């Protein structure tokens, strides 16, 4: 965007508000427009990779088994929060909300890979596609004749991202992986969870963090290869991503600490091994005591950070315990495990008759950094995020009014966007097969009749 006079004279905040205006993002071009991606992925790891490209404007075609679709459509939270229909053949079945967030903007093609005609369709698509994203078990597509080696013969510029648990070679390659397995084997769980004084259990991350992270890294690989293909070599590339190796990339200093000293880091729960006070306090009262939802009735939690010496003094004054400030005046006095185990219970005594909001208010009034631990309801109601478009109500063409996350990043001239949350299985069969394979309506109807699509 050329910086015109009106923009030049704005404050920085007004400038950002103008160029990132989320109400205008559907009017602007998409940065990956012209790139075509075929996604034969399931669950979260692979789909999220394809979704990131689709949010940036790549024409992304998701290929699923006919009628029933991929397993994530049926892997839902409890209590059947489905969106209907699953497919035009199954109006009384729905897609679970677990499918949300990993499949926006995609075109939905159904193909039964067990039939030779479906393999032919995949080869026709390969000739016209820039990127393949795939997370079947390693080597499955190669065996079926639709892997990178076969596609590259038809289209040497194809970029093929395989994603999986343990890699396509090596003794551990044959295990199937899930997010939780990646986190366990990669070493993440060993350092998240409770200190031994609090029970010692490792804690699992409830969100599928290794899936979404792996999808992001895979999309990052793909963008690098598109650059190399289009600006350097003219050639495609075969890419492999292992979820377990990706989990290891998160381990910050823990691996080098072991390498240097032999120390195996311990869990420290809601406290922080490097700083004190810098953790989560349990408050004594619920913010919603009259709610019917037991999760809202439970007591609240509040993050408090006051690790600098003078902030810690303020905090001790706030809870009326100046003796603690005297006993633990410096960082070195406070950061040891015994000191932390003495300090946090005193803070929780202060919070025992308060809600998380009351603790937060007291901290802020005393110049101490704090933040109540928000639940989904509180996150969903936050004006800041709706204004910035990271959360949005979407008038979805198939499913109606849905609340969804958007991209966390902003691009001034070519913003990412969510056009639709997802679609039923096979919703775009006619569009894709006529446009990319040149099939007639009657041919497509015949494929449907033979249960190939």
């Amino acid at each position, binding site marked *: 965007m050329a910086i015109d006079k009106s923009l030049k004279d704005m404050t920085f905040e007004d400038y950002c508000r103008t160029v990132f205006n989320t109400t205008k993002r559907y009017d602007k071009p998409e940065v990956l427009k012209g790139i075509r991606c075929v996604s034969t992925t399931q669950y979260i790891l692979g789909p999220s990779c394809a979704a990131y490209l689709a949010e940036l404007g790549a024409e992304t075609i998701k290929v699923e088994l006919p009628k029933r679709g991929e397993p994530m459509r049926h892997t839902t939270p409890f*209590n059947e*929060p489905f969106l*209907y*229909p699953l497919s035009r053949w199954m109006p009384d079945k729905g897609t679970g909300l677990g499918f949300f967030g990993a499949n926006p903007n995609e075109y939905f093609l159904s193909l039964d890979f067990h039939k030779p005609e479906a393999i032919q369709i995949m080869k026709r698509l390969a000739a016209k596609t820039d990127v393949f994203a795939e997370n079947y078990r390693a080597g499955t597509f190669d065996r079926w004749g639709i892997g990178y080696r076969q596609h590259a013969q038809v289209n040497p510029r194809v970029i093929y991202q395989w994603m999986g648990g343990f890699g396509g070679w090596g003794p551990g390659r044959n295990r199937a992986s899930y997010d939780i397995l990646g986190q366990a084997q990669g070493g993440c769980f060993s350092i998240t969870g409770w200190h031994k004084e609090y029970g010692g259990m490792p804690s699992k991350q409830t969100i599928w963090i290794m899936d979404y992270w792996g999808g992001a890294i895979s999309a990052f690989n793909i963008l690098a290869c598109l650059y190399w293909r289009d600006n350097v070599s003219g050639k495609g590339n075969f890419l492999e991503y292992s979820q377990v190796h990706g989990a290891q990339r998160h381990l910050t200093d823990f691996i080098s600490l072991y390498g240097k000293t032999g120390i195996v880091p311990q869990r420290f729960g809601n406290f922080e091994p490097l700083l004190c006070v810098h953790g989560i306090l349990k408050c004594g009262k619920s913010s919603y005591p009259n709610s*019917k939802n037991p999760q809202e009735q439970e007591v609240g939690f509040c993050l408090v950070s006051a690790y600098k010496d003078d902030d810690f003094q303020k905090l001790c004054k706030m809870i009326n315990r100046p003796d603690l400030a005297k006993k633990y005046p410096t960082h070195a006095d406070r950061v040891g495990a015994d000191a932390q185990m003495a300090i946090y219970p005193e803070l929780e005594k202060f919070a025992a008759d308060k809600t998380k909001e009351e603790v937060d208010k007291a901290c802020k009034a005393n110049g101490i950094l704090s933040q109540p631990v928000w639940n989904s309801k509180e996150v969903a109601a936050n004006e800041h995020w709706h204004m910035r478009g990271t959360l949005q109500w979407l008038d979805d063409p198939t499913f*109606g009014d849905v609340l969804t996350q958007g991209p966390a990043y902003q691009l001034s001239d070519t913003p990412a966007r969510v056009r639709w949350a997802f679609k039923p299985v096979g*919703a775009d069969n006619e569009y894709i097969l006529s446009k990319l394979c040149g099939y007639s309506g009657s041919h497509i109807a015949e494929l449907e009749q033979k249960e190939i699509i």
Partner: protein
Amino acid sequence: MPFKDASLILQCPKCDTINYLDPFTFWNFKGKIKCAGCDTVYEYALKNGHRQGAPKETKGPHDKLPGFAQSKDWKPITTAGKVAAAPQAREDFQGKPIPISKSIRGKLVSGKPLSAAELVGSVPKIFYNGV
């Protein structure tokens, strides 16, 4: 590979019913499964989601039921006792399941089972017609 030999599926050799085996329950499984179509009980084994051979007819009682099944002409079988019940949350924990047709802010959302007559292509009629 024929469809019926794909992993995590038991296509009944007698009645052709396709019994879908839920991956969490059947990923590593050796035991008896009852066909949702004709009630024949089969010995069946799966290892890492791969079937270890054809289903072998045997006598009941069965160990587990398929999670979902459909007849050869794609009619879903959902009768209790033929397929396993869906996992249910505790009502006191997450609330009672209610199929909804309005979002939390009161606008239309396609959140309840539809009949074929309520569809236009892949889109519920209420959205297609704009009502």
